[in-house]
């Protein structure tokens, strides 16, 4: 039956796997990352950093460095014309340290010179005399008040309690544990970079930067430079990953100050080592939890104490703390709780946003606890979680009612239905055993374990923050162009936004205008929020344009615009026969609309931690199968099965990418990724010693997308960025415990934790 058939490529509308516009360039190496930028007459900038975790600066002498040929200028705290500090929540971090350095790697000065090597030599010639002080490194000392304040704002960044229900209730089952989470790095591959180009009149500048939030950078930069925001333009440079590490200011202010002082473009970029000092990390935390349950294993009450080590400056610690403690219960019903939470200041590196934002830490604790309850009542990990699974309408321990779609039980049962991987055969590829290419084990040395993790994660911003995103859509001659300031950090908004425009407007060609501050804020690319927020803004702008197009067409053809709809790439009359292509309909006209999408209002917590502080929630279940070499303590994660509550899949390829990537990141925290600290000093600031999972470490991922349309979300889709990395970590640890029959309460799990 040889018949010719016309194969039409599916249009890249919502629901289809549209490809990333920058995908081929990235794979081929031709994508322009910010570190690839270049400007005529450009100088290089570099930062001098403190070698000490805590020291008093006695003097800074830059004269020898300034005398070095090729050096153009050197700046210190004295050269900051505006506000001397910055910060996302509390402006407590100096642009340059002037009196004290409070963590190893804190910026003290910056230099501009004709070559990176000149910069390096100049930095070596700057003489800083320090009086080295004993660092505060134990968070408990910060809480106890046993250490003099290391910052005028004190050593406790935030303390918050949650007190709910009956404070004295208990149950026949009581299990507890103290869980320790190590410091994880976001380890994005595209290092920090920026190019600042001063205006010819020297009164303003243009900064190209790899960031998560252009407008927030702008606000903080403008205050430090003492320049009105209109005098500063920010354009997003090519970003190679973020994961929270680009929310805070790193080199932005330094680069701008140097450019203004030198009167020439300045390029700055960090090395991998400097990057470890140049951005915030995931908070290390110690979490005590005690669960009281009835004889069936239903949770009666939770007592918990959280201590997050915020490091030297506030960054987003207050918000991370709230996220952590408000997720104490996980995705389970709980009526009574007593939670005490601290985020403290120490002389460790500042910690802030990282994918999962406080919930990762809480989840490791509550999921470890669920398994303990299961053992105590003789139930399986699946049974115990199903018995306690939360549903829409349940009150949280903050008193907030769960209004999001909450398919917790479905996530669990659908994950459970995914077939387990085949048992190891008699002959195995030794590379696939724990130990991998090190060939440390034979099949007979290996035991297999299975573990579970389920999580709840808030989406978008919390605690009364007016969170919004802005987008503009312009339709002209059948082509839509979109303008927004949404940072594309790899998550795929540049793929999604055109999909939205095609779906709403019936166009095929969509032009993305430069991502910069020439339009209103899009908010941060964080908190799993951009598909919901900027997606909502693009959708809103496109709908406004469509409405005007229908008016235009209706008027031209004397049809009630309310009868018009988009069908494929045509405007049609729902009740008549009229059909007109969008290209023709928009010929010769230009319709432009801007839309701001705000999510619903949230509230702050009261003294007892009560209040509607979160916007929405998403859920996910993970089941891990691991092979362990108990004698050597080595682990290979064989398979992760997952069912994730996504609302609606807008791009299947993008969605699975988020799930697989998140799972790899959660695996990293479970078994290898840790910034190792010793008395305030970072011991492993390199990819030689800060280990990330490789292809041989990555498990098979079998994923089910649970599509229950979320009515609150503009596109019905929930944020999917953070959930994949949250409960996979406890699932892997549970599987290790299951394999070796030993309790482990610290992550990452080290070989010696397993075998010694």
């Amino acid at each position, binding site marked *: 039956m040889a018949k010719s058939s016309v194969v039409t490529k599916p249009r890249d509308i919502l629901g289809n796997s549209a490809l990333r516009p920058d995908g081929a360039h990235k794979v081929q190496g031709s994508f322009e990352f910010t570190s690839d930028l270049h400007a005529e007459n450009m100088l290089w900038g570099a930062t001098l950093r403190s070698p000490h975790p805590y020291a008093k600066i006695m003097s800074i002498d830059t004269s020898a460095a300034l005398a070095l040929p090729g050096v153009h200028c050197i700046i210190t705290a004295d050269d900051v014309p505006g506000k001397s500090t910055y910060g996302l929540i509390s402006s407590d971090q100096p642009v340059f340290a002037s009196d004290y350095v409070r963590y190893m790697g804190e910026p003290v000065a910056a230099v501009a010179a004709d070559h990176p090597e000149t910069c390096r030599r100049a930095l070596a010639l700057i003489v800083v005399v320090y009086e080295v002080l004993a660092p505060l490194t134990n968070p408990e000392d910060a809480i106890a008040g046993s250490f003099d304040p290391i910052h005028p704002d004190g050593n406790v960044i935030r303390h918050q309690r949650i007190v709910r229900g009956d404070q004295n209730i208990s149950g026949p089952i009581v299990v507890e544990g103290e869980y320790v989470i190590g410091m994880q790095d976001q380890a994005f591959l595209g290092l920090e970079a920026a190019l600042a180009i001063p205006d010819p009149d020297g009164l303003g500048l243009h900064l190209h930067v790899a960031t998560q939030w252009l407008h927030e950078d702008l606000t903080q930069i403008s205050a430090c430079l003492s320049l009105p925001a209109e005098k500063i333009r920010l354009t997003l440079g090519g970003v190679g990953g973020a994961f929270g590490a680009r929310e805070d200011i790193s080199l932005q202010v330094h680069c701008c100050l140097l450019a203004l002082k030198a009167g020439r473009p300045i390029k700055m970029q960090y090395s991998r080592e400097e990057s470890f000092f140049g951005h915030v990390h995931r908070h290390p935390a110690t979490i005590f939890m005690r669960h009281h349950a009835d004889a069936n294993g239903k949770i009666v009450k939770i007592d918990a104490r959280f201590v997050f080590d915020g490091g030297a400056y506030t960054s987003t610690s207050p918000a991370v703390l709230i996220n952590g403690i408000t997720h104490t219960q996980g995705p389970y019903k709980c009526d009574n709780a007593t939670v005490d939470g601290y985020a403290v200041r120490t002389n460790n590196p500042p910690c802030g946003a990282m994918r999962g934002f406080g919930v990762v830490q809480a989840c490791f604790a509550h999921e470890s606890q669920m398994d303990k309850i299961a053992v105590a009542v003789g139930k399986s990990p699946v049974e115990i979680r199903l018995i306690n699974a939360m549903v829409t309408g349940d009150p949280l321990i903050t008193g907030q009612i769960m209004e999001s779609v909450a398919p917790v039980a479905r996530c669990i049962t659908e994950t459970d239905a995914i077939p387990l991987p085949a048992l190891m055969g008699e002959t195995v590829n030794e590379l696939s055993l724990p130990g991998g*290419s*090190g*060939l*440390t084990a*034979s099949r007979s*040395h290996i035991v297999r374990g299975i573990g579970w993790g389920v999580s709840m994660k808030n989406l978008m911003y919390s605690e009364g923050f007016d969170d919004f995103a802005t987008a503009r859509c312009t339709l002209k001659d059948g082509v839509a162009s979109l303008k927004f300031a949404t940072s594309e950090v790899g998550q795929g908004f540049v793929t999604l936004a055109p999909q939205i425009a095609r779906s709403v407007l019936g166009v095929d060609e969509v032009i993305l205008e430069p991502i910069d501050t020439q339009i209103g804020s899009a908010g941060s690319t964080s908190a799993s929020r951009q598909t919901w927020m900027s997606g909502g803004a693009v959708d809103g702008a496109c709908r406004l344009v469509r409405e005007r197009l229908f008016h235009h067409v209706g008027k031209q053809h004397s049809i009630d615009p309310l009868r018009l709809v988009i069908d494929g790439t045509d405007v049609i009359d729902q009740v008549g026969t009229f059909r007109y292509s969008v290209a023709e309909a928009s010929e010769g006209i230009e319709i432009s609309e801007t839309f701001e999408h705000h999510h619903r209002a949230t509230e702050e917590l009261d003294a007892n931690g009560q209040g509607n502080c979160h916007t929405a929630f998403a859920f996910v279940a993970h089941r891990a199968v691991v092979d362990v070499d108990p004698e050597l303590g080595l682990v290979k994660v064989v398979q992760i099965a997952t069912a994730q509550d996504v609302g609606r899949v807008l791009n299947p390829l993008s969605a699975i990418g988020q799930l697989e990537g998140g799972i790899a990141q959660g695996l990293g925290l479970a078994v290898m990724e840790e910034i*190792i600290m*010793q008395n305030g000093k970072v011991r492993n600031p390199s990819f030689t010693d800060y280990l990330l999972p*490789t292809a041989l*470490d990555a498990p098979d991922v079998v994923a089910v997308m649970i599509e229950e349309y979320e009515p609150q979300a503009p596109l019905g889709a929930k944020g999917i960025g953070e959930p994949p990395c949250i409960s996979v970590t406890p699932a892997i640890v549970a599987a290790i415990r299951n394999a070796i029959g030993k309790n482990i309460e610290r992550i990452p799990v080290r070989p010696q934790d397993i075998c010694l």
Partner: protein
Amino acid sequence: MTVIVAKELTTALTALREHADARLIQGGTDLMVEINFNHVKPTTMISLRDIDSLRTIRRDQPGMLSIGSGVPYSIIEEEPVLSDIPALSQAARTVGSPQIRAAGSLGGNLGTCSPAGDTLPVMFALDAMIHLNTLDSSRVVSIHDFMTGVKRSVRQHDEIITSIDFPIVKGWQGYSKVGVRNAMVISVASTCLVADHENATVRIALGSVGPTIIRCREAEAWLKANHDLSAGASISLDIAGEFGKRAAAESSPIDDHRSTAAYRRHAISVLASRLLRKAYQ
């Protein structure tokens, strides 16, 4: 910085003698990292990469495989090394990533001479001989005399490592390396074991658990004195366990950010006993 790309060994040797601060570069996988971190600042680099004679594998004498110092790991992973010196192939496979293995070499592993260098325990277990040439002389040094400490060797500035001789041993041999991830990781502890069936001996060398590679002579002697080690002998779990303990006792590991001394010692005892069992399966 001047880069001299030598096509002949003598060109490189001449340049080396003329420039007191010159550094040899083969794959560059160690040296470029050092330069990028500013640990070394050579003004002259002598590239060995185009010297064909350093990239050959020869079997001039019976029972001996001579591997050029510039042969990359990706070649060592394959035949003829795979059959003749399987432990070396295994060690080569554990080095870095495919990119690193395409560039890195035995000459560089010896030039750096780190206790974590993965091919060094194989050289120690096999009593490899290192060929060193200057413009007007040459010498052959046993690996046991070559490595003198952490990143220290007897190589003189004007010497180039040209090749390494490995005896082809009848029997079983293997290399195992523990790291905290399943590929591309610096060794936390490693072990090479060679069972020489003809001479009824077992030789074992340890990496990353002391300032140099450690040959466990006492454990080897104990094993030989107490057990039949010819082909077809059998090794019980108890013997293997005891051997592992004895090998671990000869190690002198430290605590650092990569691991602890206690874990390293434990890992050596496990690796040594597993390798021994495998050798007489």
